[in-house]
């Protein structure tokens, strides 16, 4: 199956903004970040199809996964 991954802010460094990934069925956002070489602690906000998502939820074909890094400065 194919999912679309949208990366934001610093997660784009060295990567594209939007990536199409071919994944095995049953794959999760956790598998997506592993495949992209992103550490789990660098992902603060995870959206699946624009809604709050979980690292272990099973994705469906055509889903869009959006990943944002933590931003904490003042």
């Amino acid at each position: 199956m194919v999912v679309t991954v949208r990366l934001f802010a610093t997660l784009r460094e060295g990567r594209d903004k939007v990536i199409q990934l071919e994944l095995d069925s049953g794959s999760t956002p956790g598998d997506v970040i592993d495949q992209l070489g992103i550490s789990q602690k660098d992902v603060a906000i995870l959206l699946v199809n624009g809604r709050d998502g979980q690292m272990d939820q099973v994705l469906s074909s055509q889903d869009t996964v959006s990943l944002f890094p933590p931003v904490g400065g003042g």
Partner: protein
Amino acid sequence: MQVKTTKENGMNDERYIRNERMLSPEENRQLRSFRVAVVGCGGLGGYLIEMLARLGIGHLTVIDADVFEASNLNRQLFSLPGNLGEPKAHEAGRRVKLINPDISCTVVQQRLNTENAGDILAGHDVICDALDNVSSRRAVEASASRLGIPMVFAAIAGWYAQVGTVMPGQQLMNKIYPEEVEKGAEKHLGNPSFTPALAASLQVAETLKVLLGKEGVLRNKLLMINTLDHEYQVIDI
């Protein structure tokens, strides 16, 4: 040149004249009755305090334990070569007096934590989170919720910023910060002059809307700002 005042309400007529079309006269008067706490007097906090004082928010409590350092000069509005080493909260209080003698200001030179936040933040109408570390943000959010006070949040990192409003009973921090994280992307990106100014402006707009009960507050939402690619989006959170 003297600023004209009206005897009926003691307000400076001319000072607020440019606010009087976008807000009603009654809303403008109301601003003098509100109390807003600004937690952090650095990048975000400096701009927040400047703008809230110029709006004429009646009472500001400005909170920061730190002193100005040379590395603050690139972005922190109240930092100057001549006041390095001075407490940020004191300099903020001094600035408020210079900007607007109509309003009062309490200076708190302490670091907020779970023990003292309740006492310091009680009695405010809105709390502006201008902090730079996640554990203090969590403590302020928990206290704000216990006290029933809305909290207007912003965080910055390089080209990027986030802004949202947390109403009592809601939680934002545990949705946007992984448990073990204390700093975000700002740790390696740093912060320039314009991102805090932009995010603080949006916080002031949020604060004003919350105070006056206006629509369009970023409640259960987060505005994600990317000034590098000029992408601005509101996500449900």
